[in-house]
């Protein structure tokens, strides 16, 4: 009779699996793929201007002692339109924002900026997403915080909403 406890093993296993299923049901799945580059220097890149009248963007535009934001957007991306007013707020708070436009035509970028405003200092064009890949970014919009030494200190995935504005500015100020 010493092995009687084994009889409970299937029930315990069942309860364990049930617990896992229940957890999966209650806890929504996090489908974001985060960049592994947070805490590391911005990879090297040099992008041409995304449209007329703006300047292109390279990694050397960052490491000059001033923390900045790097916004990854596209004119064809709806949440990018939604976050435009909040980028404007961040700019008004004195933050310099550079941007990369993903798979975009110059005329579409121009139309996007005309309609939603242009909070960006420089806008590089990443036509084939190869630089996005280099950054470990997985979609649009995404925003990186870059410290004065050109290191990535934070990655914000998805559109910036009202509640994100203050924390992002605070994080960037800390980075100085």
């Amino acid at each position, binding site marked *: 009779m010493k092995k009687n406890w084994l009889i409970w093993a299937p029930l315990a296993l069942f309860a364990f699996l049930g617990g896992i299923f229940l957890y999966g049901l209650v806890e929504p799945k996090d*489908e974001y*793929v*985060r*960049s*592994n*580059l947070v805490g590391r220097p911005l990879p090297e890149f040099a992008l041409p201007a995304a449209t007329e009248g703006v300047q292109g963007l390279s990694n050397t535009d960052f490491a000059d002692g001033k923390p900045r934001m790097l916004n990854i957007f596209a004119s*064809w991306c*709806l949440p990018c339109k939604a976050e435009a007013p909040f980028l404007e707020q961040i700019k008004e708070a004195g933050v310099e924002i550079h941007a990369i436009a993903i*798979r*975009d*035509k110059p005329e*579409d970028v121009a139309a996007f900026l005309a309609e939603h405003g242009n909070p960006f200092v420089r806008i590089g064009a990443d*036509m*084939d*997403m*190869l630089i*996005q*890949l*280099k*950054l*470990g970014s*997985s*979609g649009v919009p995404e925003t990186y915080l870059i410290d004065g030494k050109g290191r990535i200190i934070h990655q914000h995935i998805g559109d910036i909403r009202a509640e994100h504005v203050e924390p992002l500015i605070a994080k960037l100020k800390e980075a100085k």
Partner: protein
Amino acid sequence: MKRFVIACALAFSIVPAAAQEGLPPPLANQQLADPAQEARALELMQRLRCIQCQGQSIHDSDAPIAAAMRHEVRERIKAGQSEAEIESWLIERYGDWISFAPPASGSGLILWLLPILVLGGALLVARGRFRKREA
């Protein structure tokens, strides 16, 4: 109201992938000239996970980011890099998640060891049962 309806229609309208701007990078859908290199690239592309459509490999996926990843793989194979080098370049950016084969270390080790443990346990139980019958 009319504006709202139009906005909704726009928001939920389906845009075909081709309507999004830009051509994929050249090596995304073009095989390498050297068949041996192409075979290596293909094998690796089947093992790498697409970031956008997460259940698919970059070989199977039509997503633009998968095209960029295929280009990157072929370009690096062409330049003489090994599969392991390319894989670690991607893992450096996206984490272990990017590979369909979890690493046999850390929590990934559980995945590799579990089948062996379960099989071992089952054999032990089975042995005990057979012995009882014989007795």
